[in-house]
């Protein structure tokens, strides 16, 4: 079963509806939400009526735009984005949950992300961070804009030496330095991480978020995925659009992230939609590109024939073999160069014997 089929089955199995969409979108949607996209470069063109259109670089914005009531959707579409100075068609799958996103819903979507990762490979990890927590933390630290940028960068890079240097230059208070050091270093099972943080966090908003997160852990446990979930404050994300949990997923055999998502109520507000929302995308291209390229066989059986052989007999033979479930093809003797890899290669005579024809 292809990954696409597996994911569709998974998402549909939890009652999510398939969202189909055209490749075109009004250009204005992207002009208004440029910061949400990773790149502002789009493939644009003029429609026959003179309006400006773009090939979709993203599905989420189109889903939000068309949303008038709560909905839970999944998609498997192509998006068009620049990569290495060229436009590429990139397959992307994902889930969006729009409406009132309570603790259960949040846990459901994160669990679906876990189960999607398991479809790619059983050995997977989902890392969770919280944009709201980091924002509150930065306010609590009360640093200048320049230094809060550097601190965020240090968290993303797990650069504990830099945080230590800020503390030794007295830019950070000693206890704040220690806390940040811990957060940068942190990569621990989700439940354990929250328990240990609860003891260290003193500012009110942070405490509140941690208690929400420990309830979330219970929901994830209910879905049976908690063992794969880790607390990790090194995830990069746009703080302007994400306001709650953010998460990224990886599997052992692929050296970059294959999934990312988060809670994006702020984006909903910006687009004047009266709902909360959470979602994620699976980078199908990354998964496809890292598949092992050595296909073992082109097929099960090659039947070698010549121009002299009776075509009607050959047709009957191939039909019989193919309907028995074998991947089979007839190959002209002079075209058979050994580059094609078949599990077995038979002459017409041998094949007839095998098929009993």
């Amino acid at each position, binding site marked *: 079963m292809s990954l696409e089929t597996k994911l569709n089955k998974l998402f549909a199995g939890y009652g999510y509806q398939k969202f189909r969409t055209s490749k075109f979108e009004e250009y204005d949607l992207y002009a208004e939400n440029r910061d949400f996209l990773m790149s502002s470069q789009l493939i644009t063109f003029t429609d026959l009526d003179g309006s400006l259109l773009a090939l979709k670089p993203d599905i989420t914005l189109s889903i939000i735009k068309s949303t008038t009531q709560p909905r839970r959707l999944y998609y498997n579409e192509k998006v068009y984005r620049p990569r290495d100075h060229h436009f590429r068609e990139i397959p992307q799958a994902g889930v969006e949950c729009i409406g009132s996103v309570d603790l259960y819903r949040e846990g459901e979507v994160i669990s679906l992300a876990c189960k999607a990762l398991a479809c790619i490979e059983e050995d997977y990890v989902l890392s969770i961070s919280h944009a709201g927590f980091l924002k509150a933390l930065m306010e609590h630290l009360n640093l200048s804009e320049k230094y809060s940028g550097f601190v965020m960068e240090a968290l993303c890079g797990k650069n504990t030496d830099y945080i230590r240097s800020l503390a030794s230059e007295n830019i950070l208070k000693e206890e704040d330095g220690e806390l940040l050091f811990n957060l940068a270093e942190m990569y621990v099972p989700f439940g354990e991480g929250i328990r240990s943080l609860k003891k260290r966090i003193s500012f009110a908003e942070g405490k509140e978020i941690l208690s929400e997160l420990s309830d979330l852990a219970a929901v994830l446990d209910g879905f049976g995925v908690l063992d794969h979930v880790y607390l990790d404050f090194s995830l*990069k994300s746009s703080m302007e659009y994400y306001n709650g949990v953010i998460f990224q997923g990886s599997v052992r055999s692929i050296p*970059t992230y294959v999934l990312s998502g988060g809670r994006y109520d702020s984006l909903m507000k910006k687009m004047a939609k009266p709902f909360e929302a959470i979602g994620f995308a699976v980078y199908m291209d990354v998964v496809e590109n890292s598949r092992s390229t050595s296909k073992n066989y082109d097929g099960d059986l090659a039947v070698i024939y010549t121009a002299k052989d009776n075509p009607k007999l050959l047709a009957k033979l191939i039909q019989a073999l193919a309907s028995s479930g074998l991947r089979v093809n007839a190959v002209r003797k002079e075209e058979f160069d050994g580059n094609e890899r078949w599990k077995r290669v038979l002459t017409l005579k041998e094949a007839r014997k095998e098929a009993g024809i």
Partner: protein
Amino acid sequence: MISVALPKGRLGEEVYALLADAGYSCDEILDKKTRKLVFENKEHTVRYFQVKPTDVAVYVERGAADVGIAGKDILMEYSPDVYELLDLGIGKCRMCIAGFAEFTDNTDRPLRVATKFPHIARSYYEEIGRDIDIIKLHGSIELAPILKLSDVICDIVETGSTLRENNLVVREEVAKISARFIANKVSFRFANEEILKMKNALENRRVI
């Protein structure tokens, strides 16, 4: 098995000495005559490859190596998506703006900056709000102001002797540079224990 991308040259040798001392030795690597590119010690569950210093971050970012040693200059220039776990305190130098002592900046026109590090130069001058014209070179940067190709250079200064011999002086310091222990973000998750063990071993042996 943990794979380590080492930069070719003196820095790589220094870091290897630290790692060997920490129990990650692989004697083959010391053989100067060998043409081998990959060195493996199964017993110590470690594999080394020697690559061009500017390529270390690429190997680590794309997961061909789990960890590596790269100069802060390379990390600043290319901003690879990796973890910067440790400042090793070796290979120390400074990223500087250098030029003739008598040169005064004429703010009527963009400042011409010759450099191997266009991204670092650009972000440094953006921060102080000075418009510049970047001249990207691959070597002998000191030649640029002498031939009036550029007003100043943005380059690495170790002892300053090359600058002195060409009558150039350091005008501003952009950043302090040293070797960093970096890790692939996904390897950090799946080989967490091994990577942290190596990090701790290096941390205990570094001189800061």
